[in-house]
């Protein structure tokens, strides 16, 4: 290992915290904004200790108004700042949707490239934590659909750290979806070596019979599914998409040309979801390589259910394996 290399085992929460800390240290234009991000350190403690060390001028507790948070972040970006704003929960982002879609996403184009919008919007997303309504949603498709935005989601601590570094460095607005039910999963982070580009998919588990493509919280479910399938002699490749806009179709295509079968998994509703886009494009690119239609596993066209029902709603191990079996049966 090279001198100065640091490898630590961190939770996703701690990895994001370390990444934000590093950016606050190295670039005095970086600001943290959001509800309760200061003294409390955020409801998930992602920003824990940052206000204490960097002050109220850089780690800013905001009024409880999401449109205001994003709208003022746009103004700060126009002034030369690089705001990293927190939306406290997925279901709270919609008051800011207009500012994100109508202003943030389009400002660069409106100015014919003469202004840039280096704003990161952190959204803890997804279910599985037994929460009340509006605290378990997966709205990524609503943002990925909008030109001008980029959407990413880490599935492990190393990506959480590095993708945040890359999102902050980006001159484009990035919606950074944090898999909240994996917040406390720990894994190794090498804080001296960038693992790869922000928008590239990564083979998480190599395999040869079928590709499971997922991102964020569902990568772990897919890993578990691959392990279970392996016990039955099936070789499943797990692809961590990492980025929902852009999507690394080349990476998926390379995997599918090898495995000839693809199942896309996400918590978000299947209808108009990322899986639909992946299925359409991969069918177009790999039509003669596919042995089965691309299948999707995800949420239903229903409001996210009360938490006592969420295990039925969320795509768990069994539903993923069922789709694997169906695809292999063709």
């Amino acid at each position: 290992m090279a001198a100065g290399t640091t490898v630590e085992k961190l939770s996703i929460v701690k990895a994001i915290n370390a990444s934000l800390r590093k950016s606050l240290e190295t670039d005095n234009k970086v600001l943290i904004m959001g509800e309760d991000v200061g003294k409390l350190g955020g409801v998930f403690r992602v920003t824990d200790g940052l206000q204490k060390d960097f002050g109220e001028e850089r780690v800013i507790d905001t009024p409880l108004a999401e449109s205001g948070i994003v709208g003022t972040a746009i103004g700060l970006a126009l002034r030369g700042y690089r705001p990293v704003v927190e939306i406290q929960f997925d279901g709270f982002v919609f008051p800011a949707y207009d500012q994100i879609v109508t202003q943030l996403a389009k400002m660069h184009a409106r100015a014919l490239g003469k202004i840039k919008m280096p704003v990161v919007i952190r959204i803890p997303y997804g279910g599985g934590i037994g929460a009340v309504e509006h605290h378990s949603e997966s709205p990524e498709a609503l943002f990925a659909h909008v030109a001008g935005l980029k959407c990413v989601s880490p599935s492990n601590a190393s990506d959480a750290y590095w993708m945040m570094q890359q999102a902050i460095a980006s001159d484009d607005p990035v919606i950074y979806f944090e898999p909240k039910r994996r917040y406390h999963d720990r894994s190794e982070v090498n804080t001296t070596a960038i693992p790869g580009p922000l928008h590239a998919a990564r083979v998480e588990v190599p395999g040869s019979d079928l590709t499971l493509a997922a991102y964020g919280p569902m990568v772990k479910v897919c890993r578990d599914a691959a392990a279970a399938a392996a016990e039955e002699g099936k070789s499943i490749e797990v692809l961590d998409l990492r980025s929902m806009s852009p999507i690394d179709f080349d990476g998926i295509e390379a995997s599918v040309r090898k495995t000839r079968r693809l199942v896309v998994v996400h918590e978000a509703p299947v209808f108009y979801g990322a899986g639909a886009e992946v299925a359409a494009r991969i069918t177009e690119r790999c039509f003669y390589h596919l042995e089965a239609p691309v299948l999707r596993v995800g949420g239903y066209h229903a409001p996210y259910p009360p938490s006592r029902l969420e295990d039925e709603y969320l795509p768990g191990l069994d539903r993923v394996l069922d789709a694997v079996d169906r695809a292999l049966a063709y």
Partner: protein
Amino acid sequence: MTVDSTAARKPRRSSSTKRTRAKQPTADQPELVQLLTPEGERVEHPDYSIDLTPDELRGLYRDMVLTRRFDAEATTLQRQGELGLWASLLGQEAAQIGSGRALRDDDYVFPTYREHGVAWCRNVDPTNLLGMFRGVNNGGWDPSTNNFHLYTIVIGSQTLHATGYAMGVAKDGADSAVIAYFGDGASSQGDVAEAFTFSAVYNAPVVFFCQNNQWAISEPTERQTRVPLYQRAQGYGFPGVRVDGNDVLACLAVTRAALERARSGQGPMLIEAFTYRMGAHTTSDDPTKYRADEERELWEAKDPILRLRAYLAAENLADEDFFTTLEQESDALAKRVRDAVRSMPDPDNMAIFEHIYADGHALVDEERAQFAAYQASFAQEGH
């Protein structure tokens, strides 16, 4: 309310040394800061005063006349099919020139889509404003060149951008100020309420300049509010003031004071410029469907340009040469704008894919290449 429409051209008082007090406010017409009456008479106000040189006074007059001429030309260009749409500022020249001339170069403006007079004050070339109305771009100018942000179409959104920008100004320790324009309709938007909240709690150096032109397309101000709009500021913890929006001197004086206040760390202020949209909302609108001619006639008697002209004439501050030269200048401006619009090229087809992302995006690259290949296929077929 009765107004002698001939009075605008015949000021009753012609001495600048003898100034009367403004009229007392009444219940339905709360106090309005006024320094120049509709008849062109200079009046005093206890809180706001202004002392301008003849050059400056003529300058304000020139700004208003040229802005009105440019605006009229744009309306004509729309009628002739050269522009797809135009949002006229007719009647709001004093509000825009008065506030616009209060700004320092380092101040920053966040306009709506109707601030052609403010753009003029910021030295934004008028033809720059016309690209979006012709349909060749969505704005396209560099806001940092003149500290004049892009026109914002969705109502009220820019008040938050102005607030954020002002928060940045304060963080930088600069003494610039920011001004956010919006209208009576926008005052109902949540973003404006949030901008008031954020600017107040962070004490941001921003002035909210509301041109209450009485109409939000077809809806009168009564459909937006039950209190005079300037009074909303009180609930947020900063001052609000209503100014005669057709009085360029009052608009200048009040905006100057508000900007100075912001610069000196005293936080935001709301100015409600009480004015009137003399024309339609845009060239697509038909105000005869919802408002009476009589109302427009009442406001014609309060015209911002006529009252300053009456004052200049009564005080012998401008001679015939000045007015003749200005007329020629107006015609030259109109011609320049007309020529510029008519020779404005359509954008290249590939512009669809430009400037979507600063750092690029794989899908945009893919679709650009597909589109280019598709376009090229026609050229090949032509062989």
